[in-house]
């Protein structure tokens, strides 16, 4: 990696995610955000490295741990924060909350809080693209826990059978909520799972943003040139609890501490400094800009307004009965 512009962009994206998520936790404790809140801290390299490889014409389908994907897909942080505050200025009008961020203009299809349910949806979007002869990719993010769901197996099977342009992005953070991978999966080799459906697959160090970027580029290139699906495993780790309600009884603090030594942001910062791609001053400038963005997002969310209950039942159907 020698590209200074890319390095700066990747580091900026990861810091934007980290600082936004930290602010979300703070706002949760302050009672401003309610419901379930699933943070992406520790996994930043995956979203930062992979999402920028996609084009604006491509679709992104994510899970309930999707703040990062929404942000990097281009939804303003202000709109994301307002959504979590339940304000009508939010990207889902306050109807969705943390788990249901959406943006039609950016082809961001949520925000799906049923594990693996986004996968048939992504395959369907790809089915439409193939049918209508549009050269686009549908990228679906999900955790390794989703690979135990029927929807995973059914989607992988049909995507390969029908050669659908779906990019399956598995964020393997080693825990399905509190159940570790060896306690949830008989086959922990996820590449073997993909290959059992003859879906081409590759694995990458999900704590290394360059590795995430490169494997995504390989996957996107494969789909654009060969057609058919591709499966990527990003081996990553969640530093914080599953959600704000999680007391983390299922894993050792030592294990978390060990993974934190591989913090993707720290590791990449060190590397950029060592390679003289960025200076300490550059990093400080990024942090400063991000702090301003986060502050603006909170201000925007605070200033946002609550929808009148008079319109409670709108948007259930296109034409209300």
């Amino acid at each position, binding site marked *: 990696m020698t590209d200074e512009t890319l390095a700066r962009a990747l580091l900026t994206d990861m810091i934007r995610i980290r600082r936004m998520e930290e602010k979300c936790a703070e706002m949760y404790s302050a009672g401003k955000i309610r419901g379930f809140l699933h943070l992406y801290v520790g996994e930043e390299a995956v979203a930062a490295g992979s999402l920028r490889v996609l084009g604006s014409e491509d*679709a992104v389908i994510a899970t309930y741990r999707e703040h990062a994907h929404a942000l990097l897909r281009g939804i303003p942080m202000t709109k994301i924060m307002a959504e979590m505050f339940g304000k009508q200025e939010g990207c*889902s*009008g*306050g*109807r*969705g909350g943390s788990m*249901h961020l*959406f*943006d*039609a203009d950016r082809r961001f*299809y*949520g*925000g*799906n809080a*049923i594990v693996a*349910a986004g*996968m*048939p*949806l*992504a*395959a*369907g*979007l*790809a*089915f*439409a*693209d193939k*049918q*209508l002869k549009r050269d686009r990719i*549908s990228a679906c993010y999900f955790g390794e826990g989703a690979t135990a769901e*029927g*929807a995973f197996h*059914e*989607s992988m*099977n*049909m995507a390969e*059978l*029908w050669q659908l342009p779906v990019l399956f992005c598995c964020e393997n953070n080693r825990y399905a909520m509190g159940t570790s991978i060896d306690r949830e999966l008989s086959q922990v080799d996820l590449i073997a799972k993909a290959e059992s459906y003859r879906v081409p697959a590759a694995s990458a160090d999900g704590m290394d943003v360059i590795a995430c970027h490169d494997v995504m580029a390989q996957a996107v290139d494969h789909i654009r040139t060969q057609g058919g699906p591709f499966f990527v495993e990003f081996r990553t780790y969640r530093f914080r609890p599953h959600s704000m309600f999680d007391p983390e009884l299922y894993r050792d603090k030592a294990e978390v501490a060990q993974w934190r030594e591989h913090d993707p942001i720290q590791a990449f910062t060190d590397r950029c400094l060592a390679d003289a791609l960025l200076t300490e001053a550059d990093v400080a400038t990024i942090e400063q800009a991000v702090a301003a963005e986060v502050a603006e997002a909170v201000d925007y969310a605070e200033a946002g307004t609550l929808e009148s209950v008079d319109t409670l039942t*709108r*948007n*259930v*159907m*296109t*034409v209300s*009965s």
Partner: protein
Amino acid sequence: MKTTYRGAVHDAIADAMRADARVVLLGEDVGRYGGTYAVSKGMLEEFGSERIRDTPISELGFVGIGIGAALGGLRPIVEVMTVNFSLLALDQIVNTAAALRHMSNGQFSVPVVIRMATGAGRQLAAQHSHSLENWYAHVPGITVLAPATVADAYGMLRTALTNPDPVVIFEHVGLYNLSADPDELVATDISRAVLRRNGNDATVIAYGGCVPKALDAAEELAAGGIECDVIDLRVLRPLDDTTILESVRRTHRVVVVDEAWRTGSLAAEISSRIVEGAFYELDAPIARVCTMEVPIPYAKHLEDAALPQSDKIVAAVRGLFGDAQ
């Protein structure tokens, strides 16, 4: 032009596919096999395997793909073999299709049409015969249809395909061989119930496979001097309260017929709406004729005994007048 209910569904799909290249049909054995109930017979030859898509036995997956394809700009018709099997796809229908528009604040609509066979009467026992229309009719965000005539089998499907939101269509297995001679098949309304027979003495409300039974009962009752309104609900969500209440205010007596189990049924919902909207108009308690609270048995005599039949409807209507049964 003599045609069957099966033929009408076939023609609705085929005409829609000819009119709009975005229409595709997905489902188990819809292609080479010609459809479990032979609805899509011959379509593979005309439209090809890209548009008449045989799927693996993966109800959750292919219903989800239909939903995604609708989001992506197609007009998919997804065929599910029976309502019992649709339970495997319930997550995608309820948690995704029905909820997406609302949780995205109106940014995404899902114009998918999901068709499935429903109901008993063919000795298919407890995993192929149930009537679970009320499960779907419970859910905001979807329109639920139950065509009971040849004209509606064609017309409601054509209109469903112009609807911007998800539509679930129930085709009763006992109706596929129903034959009629309509002048022409055209798109029909998908918001109203209709009166299939007029009479001022009592109202019989039915849908789907129970409509012919209700009409038979009304015929028999008329011979005995009781003239009935027979309402074909057609649309199970949203329910057409206006047509129901207008009839009840005129007849003052009601029997609700429902092939589902009585507990938590649409018959219960309809009874409740009548009580809310026309309680003081009633001259007798509302009666219900529903399926017995048992998984549908295989043996013919037991299956018949479990289901609403016209003689039970006749008895229920007579009961409204205090007659001994």
